[in-house]
C-alpha cells in the first residue's frame, strides 16, 4: 500500500519507534549526567536547544539534497520525529517552569521559559542557516527547484537565480 499515509505504514512507524526510544534514553542519560545548579533544569534546557539546532540542520540538509523519498525519507523519520522528537521535550519545559513558579521563584521560572523559546527558535534557525550554507542547491538540479516536504511544512526553495535574494530573506 505505497499510497497510504506515512503514519499508517509499518516501516515509518518502526523507524520513529526506534529513533524515539534512543532519543528518550539519551535525554534520560543526559539528565543523570548533567547537574541542575540551584535546582534549575539545565538538562532539559540543554537537550532542547541542542535538539532544536540538530533538527534544523537535519531537515534543511535533507531538503537541500532532494525530495522526501527513499533513504532520505527513512533517515528523516529515524532522526527527525524519531530521535530528535524523543530527545527533546516540551512537557518537561512546561512542568519545570510551573514547579519553579510554585516555589515562588518567578524570575527563574519566567526566565527559563522565555529563554527556552527565544534561544530555541534561534537554535533551530541557526541549524537551518548552517545547512543552507553547507548544502547549497546545485545549479539546475532537477526536481528541487520548486518545493519539497519537510517533516512540518512545504518549503519553497528559491530558483537558482534567486539564491542571493532568498539568502538575505532568511536572515
Amino acid at each position, binding site marked *: 500500500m505505497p499510497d497510504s*499515509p*506515512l*503514519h*499508517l505504514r509499518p516501516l*515509518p*512507524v518502526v523507524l*520513529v*519507534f*526506534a*529513533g*524515539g*526510544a534512543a*532519543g*528518550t*534514553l539519551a*535525554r*534520560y*542519560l543526559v*539528565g543523570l549526567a548533567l547537574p541542575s545548579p540551584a535546582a534549575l533544569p539545565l538538562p532539559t534546557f540543554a537537550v*532542547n536547544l541542542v*535538539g*532544536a539546532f*540538530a*533538527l*534544523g540542520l537535519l*531537515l534543511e540538509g535533507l531538503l537541500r539534497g532532494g525530495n522526501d523519498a527513499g533513504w532520505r525519507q527513512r533517515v528523516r523519520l529515524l532522526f*527527525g*520525529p*524519531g530521535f*530528535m*522528537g*524523543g*530527545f*527533546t*521535550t*516540551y*512537557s*518537561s*519545559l*512546561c*512542568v519545570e*517552569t*510551573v*514547579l519553579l513558579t*510554585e516555589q515562588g521563584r518567578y524570575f527563574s521560572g519566567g526566565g527559563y*521559559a522565555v529563554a527556552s*523559546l527565544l534561544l*530555541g*527558535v534561534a*537554535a*533551530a*534557525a541557526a541549524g*537551518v542557516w548552517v545547512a543552507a550554507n553547507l548544502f547549497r542547491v546545485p545549479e539546475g538540479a532537477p526536481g528541487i527547484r520548486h518545493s519539497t516536504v*519537510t*517533516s*512540518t*511544512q512545504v*518549503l519553497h526553495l528559491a530558483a537558482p537565480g534567486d539564491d542571493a535574494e532568498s539568502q538575505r*530573506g*532568511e536572515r
Partner: protein
Amino acid sequence: MIVPLLVALAGGVGAVARFVLDGVIRSRVALLVPAGTFVINVSGSLLLGFVTGVVMVGAEPADVRIVLGTGFLGGYTTFSTAMIETVRLLQQRRWVAAAVSGVGMLLLGLGAAVLGVFLGTLMR
C-alpha cells in the same frame, strides 16, 4: 537497569503516538498553525503536570513518574519540532501564525501544566 530500558521503550511508544496523532490531525485539519504539534505538546504538558501532581502527594513511586513522565510523555511531546515549525512560519513571514506557534503554544502549555498539577494533587 530495568528503569532505563522501560524509559526507552516508553519513549518509543510516545514518539509513535505523536507520529500517528500528528499524521491524523494533519490529514484532517488545516489551520493557521501546524495543529498536530500544538495539540500534542499542550496535552502532554497537561498529562505530565497530572503525573507530577500525583507523585507530589506521594500516591505513586518515583519510578512510575520517570517511566511515564521522562519516558512516555517526554517522547510524546517535542520541543525541536515546535521550534522548527515556528522558524518555517517566520521564513514565510506568517508573523501571526509564528506567534501562535511559539508564544501561544508556550502559554497554553504552561496553563495546561498548572491545571494538570492541580488535578494531580487532588488524587489523594
